[in-house]
């Protein structure tokens, strides 16, 4: 049983266009989806949910969102943290204003609000490109955090300036608030990840994705064949912000439970998500997951290894971990600038010929 297309004949363009053209890949994908939905919820405990799975899933959504904008459409953004804050605060306001409506709708509407804000900040992208756009989005990041700090209406005039998620249920099961079970948190995030990743994949393989990539690769040529730049860029900002907003809403409501805007959604969050997509691979759905996994799992792994395994003091381990992650990022970028997704692609290409490479 070798890893290749041979014998797996495609007889229609629909089959030829599918996401996993190789049979073994398809099986692997079905297996992962099956394990994620049918096995992990029964095994998960609080530690695994809070340290590994829930942050991984939420950051995957944020990385997918930024990858749509930066990886597919080529518009660099440093405003991810700010847009996550928009999602979080929109979700908080909706949760407290309409407690009788299901939280799932609140989260989706929060994404919609963030999409609108993102498109507004995306308007300058028509005029400015590259680094200048990055600086403009960084301005959005600082402005939004400042706004949520300064205007008490956003945090319902609470004395601490924090927002705290009240308990909300889906089908009678608590998904936010202090009494949430680990598996419930995990399942909410997983469903969002699954649906959103599927939608992003569909958008990027169709004509919308080709418009984005055309603008990214050569905007003049894109225009000459009939891609009008304004809608193409704004849809990228819209879709991207929608995802980032949902990630922000989940991050606040399901993961943190309570958040202070500068701490939870500061510029470091923007850079973290940007690192994820650069390490994972720009312009790749798989890369978004790989990058999120790398940035979330590596610190956890190191901590367990150093503190749990070698018995180092916690503070020393924390500093060492920061240094090591930084060094690894640099090494990684030198060794494979196109990210984990490219490594994965190369591995698959090699595997297709293995064991007869000539």
């Amino acid at each position, binding site marked *: 049983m070798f890893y290749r297309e041979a014998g797996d004949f495609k007889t229609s363009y629909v089959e030829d266009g599918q996401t996993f053209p190789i049979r073994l890949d398809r099986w692997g994908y079905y297996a992962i989806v099956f394990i994620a939905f049918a096995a992990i919820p029964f095994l998960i405990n609080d530690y695994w949910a809070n340290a590994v799975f829930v942050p991984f899933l939420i950051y995957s959504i944020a990385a997918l969102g930024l990858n749509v904008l930066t990886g597919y459409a080529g518009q660099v953004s440093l405003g991810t943290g700010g847009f996550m804050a928009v999602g979080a605060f929109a979700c908080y306001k909706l949760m407290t204003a309409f407690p009788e409506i299901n939280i799932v709708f609140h989260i989706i509407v929060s994404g919609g609000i963030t999409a609108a804000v993102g498109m507004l900040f995306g308007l300058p992208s028509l005029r400015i490109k590259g680094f200048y756009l990055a600086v403009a989005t960084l301005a959005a990041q600082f402005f939004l955090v400042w706004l949520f700090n300064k205007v008490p209406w956003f945090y319902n005039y609470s004395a601490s300036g924090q927002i705290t998620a009240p308990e909300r249920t889906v089908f009678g099961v608590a998904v936010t608030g202090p009494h949430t079970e680990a598996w419930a948190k995990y399942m909410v995030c997983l469903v969002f990840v699954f649906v959103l990743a599927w939608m992003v994949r569909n958008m990027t393989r169709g004509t*919308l994705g080709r418009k984005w990539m*055309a603008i990214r*690769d*050569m905007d003049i040529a894109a225009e*000459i064949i009939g891609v009008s730049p304004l809608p193409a860029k704004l849809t990228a900002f819209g879709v991207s912000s929608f995802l980032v907003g949902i990630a922000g809403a989940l991050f606040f409501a399901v993961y943190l439970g309570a958040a202070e805007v500068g701490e939870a959604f500061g510029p470091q969050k923007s850079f973290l998500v940007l690192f994820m997509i650069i390490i994972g691979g720009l312009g790749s759905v798989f890369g978004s997951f790989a990058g999120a996994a790398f940035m979330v799992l590596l610190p956890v792994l190191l901590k367990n290894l150093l503190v749990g395994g070698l018995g180092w003091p916690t503070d020393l381990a924390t500093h060492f971990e920061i240094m090591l992650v930084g060094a690894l990022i640099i090494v990684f970028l030198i060794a494979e600038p196109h990210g984990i997704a490219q490594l994965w692609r190369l591995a698959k290409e090699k595997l297709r010929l293995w064991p007869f490479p000539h």
Partner: protein
Amino acid sequence: MSSLTHKEEVPEGGYRTPDGRIIGGVLMDLKDITLRFGGVTAISNISFDIRQGEIRAIIGPNGAGKSSMLNVISGFYVPQEGEIWFRGRKRPPLKPYQVARQGVARTFQNIALFKGMTTLDNIMTGRVTRMKSNMLEQAIWWGRAEREEVENREVVERIIDFLEIQAIRKTPVGRLPYGLQKRVELGRALAAEPDLLLLDEPMAGMNVEEKEDMSRFILDVNDEFGTTIALIEHDMGVVMDLSDRVVVMDYGRKIGDGTPDEVRNDQAVIDAYLGVVHE
């Protein structure tokens, strides 16, 4: 040639070529175009027309304003003076993507492919103006989105067959050699099924074999799809063989216009560009 045996009517404004093809009326008429960049006049007071179904060449020395002329036609530059008439209607100043939607496609002198995308995706991108499904349909990949993808894929596959690039269908274009990239770029322009195809030096930097291939494709496009073609080219042998009529430019002015034979024997054109053969 079948048109030799059938005595077809030559439409108004058209003519019959020496090889028997029928050329129709005026498709695009450029009237007194003047284009300035600050103090530099790139194109001064040039008029010519492009007729339905013909292969029209624009030649001239470097810096004569040939590429600027194509950029005016495709909407990159808006001329300060002059009018562009397309399909019998005066064209207002349009953005390049609006020109594309009217049925004008082009290739570039320096290849302008989407390097990160496969050959197939590049050519599929040529069909964006025909894809109408909205974002939601695309996101859930249902109904119109998938149907459109398949319908357009069929058209694109015909172009891939036509250009004989089946083997590189799923290769990222950045990895392809120069000659093939030029061919993919032609494919992307053809995918739009244009009425008017602009080719900016389609054979620059090619060897003889590649030039012959490309010439064959250009003639076949004209013959099979009836596409009107305007091209810029420096290889005089190719230009004289391919084109029905030639415009000659020098320093932004038009110094000659006519059939290849007329142009070849025009003293002004010989002085400015062609030169004389030294025995």
